[in-house]
């Protein structure tokens, strides 16, 4: 039986390791350890060959070192890979027992040996299922026996590798990609395996092997030379880990990080600082390995590859796309301004295509000059929005960090770049966690099959996607400045960054809200009784609006998903969804029940000083109004209400970013909401959002956000006044909507095969005085007019409404009455049928 190497190691080998440990502690020189152990093992193997094989009559055989042993890179507790080479198959049989005795003797000597006995012919026969054999033979080195046999093999191997380089590279690439995927394709693990994790020693080996398989590739050789410092750092660290643990352990645990930071540098460093050195080197190795890997993979001239080059059509005046990579036409010009850089990465974010290695190198070189430049003239929010609105934002932001341009544009980012914060559950550094979280949102945007359906729907309904990603980008940035109080730190940094890039005030509030509350839903999930009505009320109060709740639910989904690959369990997913639904239903109920009392509203908008006009205007409007309108907008609408004029109606239409807004104020009257919807439809406008409510004085405030798909208002400014006047005349009863609609071709109704079948749900419990109707269906121009008309024709009065459309889906909430009371239960069936018919359902 082979002895246990750790307990039955003979004195000679144990002494060697002990003396190497002492000298390593003194000089921290990994090369000396590797060379000394390799030489000692060579000697042991050669002696064992004489004692066991030669003594048994073996003559024509060679013992060669493979893999790391072949490269003379034997770390203190590394395995020993041996090839026993014989001329022919018939030579194996007589010496079979002897060839087994040899490794056994080495095991007894305290070495962990793997060996194989092969003929020369076998070594140059392609084993596609055992490509590891051919890779290990790349580092073949003579140790004992007949040297001429190895010379013969070496000559044939040269030709073998030349002939099969392509297939070997493809298989090696597959193995490497699988290994990377096992570690979630990231260097940035809190406790990395310094051999196997991307950027570890295995990636260095990969570069070495690809260099041997592509001897003509100068770039690989050059990049290998440039990595000498990073590789020596890892080699030193691996020696240290082996000596500390007395085994072949390559896991850099938190405890070992502390001691390594004290003992390995010339002067002890704080652990965090030393870990940044580790990540810096690992990142360099990883990038070089990926570059070589990509080169190996693209040595494919097949038709399929040529077809993949179709993306070159995406090239612009500034970038060229070739072989799935972006090349810069004018790098200096692109890097000259923050806007240029963000536009470049917006392109990455939009198409999911990475920068070429050359583009990365050039940007990295420019990064030190970028920071002072953008400090004077930072790129503003619209450029960030353009990037963060796209479905590959995580990729773009990662590449920005890789090229240091993210750090240049947001210098505060340096605080969390490669930052290790010790946490039992978290797997990644803070920056990587942030990218993984944004990636979880991107997965929802890309409709990948794995994300859960409900949250994808929620994302599709979300308009402020850039804000969501921006909040995620900054949600943990305070971990670098305020450990233990990171929410406060993140808020402070977010305020500074947003002021610098001029994020509009309303958006700033949303981002700050999301950062401040980014842990709240997790807390509700685990610490609140979700069946307790008080929990729902408190949640609704805390969130304020459905929009905020939706964004926070998505942010929480992403944040939990990025803790580690298995953190978002079905259990947590279910709990988070329950919390979201709990809050959403409560907020919807409160639309009607939670009304403004102007005395308390004063605190919101005028520091307690409300004018009588403002008091009268606000009294009785839904509280939501205060939460969705800023102070200035509220005061503007108060003034607007003062312009009702002799006809008792005021209409305002104005541009609102990429859409238009119409506000109609008048005394309530039957069918009012349908009239305005119909007028907008008659002008070809597509209503995106709408809200309508009345205050205690009976003044109705209808607000519409609508798209102008034919750009009528933009190209014909006089049409804005015309539309305003038309709405006014319709509301005054001087024009009929039906006549207006006759002028237009009817909007197409969805076919019966429409992807979203209309759904109508009645809720009699939500309000004391109204019936709540939930409607979800396929959106189309004129839909809201048809629904509102159906309600009017059924004798219903719309008391309050909230309309939202996203991704071709209309999500409408109507609070209606009939004859001043709830709709009789018996009439719900007919009303439901009328609404479904109006929506084109069946």
């Amino acid at each position, binding site marked *: 039986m082979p002895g246990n190497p750790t307990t039955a190691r003979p004195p000679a080998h144990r002494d060697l390791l002990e003396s190497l440990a002492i000298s390593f502690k003194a000089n921290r020189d990994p090369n000396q350890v590797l060379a000394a152990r390799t030489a000692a093992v060579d000697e042991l193997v050669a002696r064992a060959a004489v004692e066991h094989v030669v003594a048994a009559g073996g003559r024509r055989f060679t013992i060669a070192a493979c893999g790391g042993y072949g490269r003379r890179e034997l770390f203190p507790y590394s395995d020993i890979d041996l090839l026993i080479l014989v001329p022919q198959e018939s030579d194996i049989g007589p010496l079979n027992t002897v060839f087994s005795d040899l490794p056994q003797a080495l095991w007894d000597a305290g070495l962990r040996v793997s060996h194989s006995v092969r003929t020369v012919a076998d070594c140059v026969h392609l084993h596609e299922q055992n490509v590891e054999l051919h890779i290990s033979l790349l580092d073949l080195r003579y140790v004992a026996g007949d040297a001429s046999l190895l010379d013969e093999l070496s000559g044939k191997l040269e030709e073998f590798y030349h002939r099969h380089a392509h297939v070997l590279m493809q298989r090696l690439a597959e193995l490497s990609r699988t290994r990377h995927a096992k570690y979630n394709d990231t260097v940035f693990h809190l406790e990395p395996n310094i051999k196997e994790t991307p950027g570890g020693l295995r990636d260095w080996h990969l570069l070495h092997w690809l260099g041997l398989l592509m001897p003509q590739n100068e770039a690989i050789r050059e990049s290998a030379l440039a990595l000498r410092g990073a590789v020596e750092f890892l080699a030193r660290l691996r020696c240290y880990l082996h000596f500390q643990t007395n085994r072949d352990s390559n896991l850099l645990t938190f405890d070992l990080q502390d001691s390594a930071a004290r003992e390995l540098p010339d002067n002890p460093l704080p652990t965090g600082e030393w870990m940044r050195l580790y990540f810096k080197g690992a990142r360099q190795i990883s990038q070089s390995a990926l570059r070589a890997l990509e080169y190996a993979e693209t040595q494919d001239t097949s038709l399929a590859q040529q077809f993949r080059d179709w993306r070159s059509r995406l090239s612009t005046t500034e970038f060229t796309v070739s072989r799935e990579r972006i090349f810069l036409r004018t790098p200096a010009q692109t890097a000259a301004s923050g806007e240029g850089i963000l536009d470049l990465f917006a392109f990455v974010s939009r198409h999911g295509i990475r920068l070429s290695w050359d583009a990365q190198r050039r940007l990295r070189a420019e990064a030190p000059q970028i920071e002072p430049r953008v400090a004077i003239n930072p790129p503003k929010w619209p450029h960030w929005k353009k990037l963060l609105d796209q479905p590959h934002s995580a990729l773009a932001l990662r590449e920005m960090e890789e090229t240091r341009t993210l750090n240049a544009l947001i210098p505060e980012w340096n605080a969390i770049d490669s930052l290790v914060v010790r946490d039992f559950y978290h797997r990644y550094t803070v920056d990587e966690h942030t990218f993984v979280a944004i990636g979880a949102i991107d997965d929802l945007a890309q409709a990948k099959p794995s994300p859960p359906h409900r949250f994808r729907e929620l994302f599709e309904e979300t308009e402020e996607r850039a804000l969501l990603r921006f909040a995620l980008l900054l949600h943990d940035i305070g971990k670098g400045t305020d450990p233990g109080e990171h929410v406060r730190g993140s808020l402070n940094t977010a305020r500074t960054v947003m002021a610098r890039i001029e994020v509009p005030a309303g958006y700033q509030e949303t981002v700050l809200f999301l950062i401040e509350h980014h842990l709240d839903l997790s807390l509700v999930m685990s610490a609140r009784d979700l069946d307790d009505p008080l929990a729902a009320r408190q949640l609704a109060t805390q969130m304020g609006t459905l929009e905020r709740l939706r964004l926070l639910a998505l942010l929480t989904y992403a944040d939990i998903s990025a803790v580690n690959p298995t953190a978002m369990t079905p259990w947590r997913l279910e709990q988070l969804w329950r919390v979201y*639904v709990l809050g959403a239903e409560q907020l919807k109920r409160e639309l009607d029940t939670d009304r403004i009392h102007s005395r308390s509203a004063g605190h919101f908008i005028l520091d307690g000083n409300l004018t009588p006009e403002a008091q009268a205007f606000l009294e009785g409007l839904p509280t939501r109004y205060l939460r969705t309108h800023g102070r200035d907008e509220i005061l503007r609408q108060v003034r607007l209400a003062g312009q009702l004029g002799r006809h008792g109606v005021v209409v305002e239409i104005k541009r609102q970013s990429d859409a238009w807004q119409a506000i109609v104020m008048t005394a309530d009257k039957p069918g009012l909401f349908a009239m305005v919807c119909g007028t907008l439809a008659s002008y070809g406008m597509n209503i995106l959002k709408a809200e309508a409510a009345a205050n205690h004085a009976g003044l109705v405030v209808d607000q519409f956000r609508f798209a102008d798909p034919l750009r009528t208002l933009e190209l014909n400014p006089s049409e804005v006044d015309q539309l305003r006047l038309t709405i006014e005349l319709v509301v005054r009863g001087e024009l009929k909507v039906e006549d207006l609609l006759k002028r237009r071709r009817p909007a197409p109704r969805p076919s019966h095969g429409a992807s979203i079948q209309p759904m109508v749900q009645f809720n009699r419990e939500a309000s004391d005085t109204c019936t709540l109707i939930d*409607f979800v269906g396929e959106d189309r121009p004129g839909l809201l007019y048809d629904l509102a008309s159906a309600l009017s024709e059924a004798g219903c009065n719309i008391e309050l409404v909230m309309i939202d459309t996203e991704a071709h889906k209309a999500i409408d909430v109507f609070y209606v009455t009939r004859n001043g009371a709830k709709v009789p239960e018996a009439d719900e069936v007919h009303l439901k049928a009328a609404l479904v018919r109006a929506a084109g359902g069946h």
Partner: protein
Amino acid sequence: MKKIEAIIQPHKLDEVKEALKGIGVDGMTVSEVRGHGRQKGHKEVYRGMEYDVDLLPKIKVELVVADSRLDEITAAIAAAARTGKIGDGKIFVFDVAEAIRIRNNETGEAAL
């Protein structure tokens, strides 16, 4: 020795842990589970659509205790986990044949 398996409401975990800590019980295994007993599931309405929520999120707390402490510990769990409503959960008790501490091979109650 007895093994206690308590299925409780998620929001009651902290209270149960505190209660156990208060009587000197620190060791336990906690897992997130889904299921239902008499509470069954329920329907949730979202956007006009009804969802059947048949398996509800719960927490399972497992611990092995000396026979002499069983009543005290189950009482502490029950008191801390109780809200009085359907869905509070259940406590199951099993006989345990043996316990072995892996580190030093201690056995029986000494291993707890």
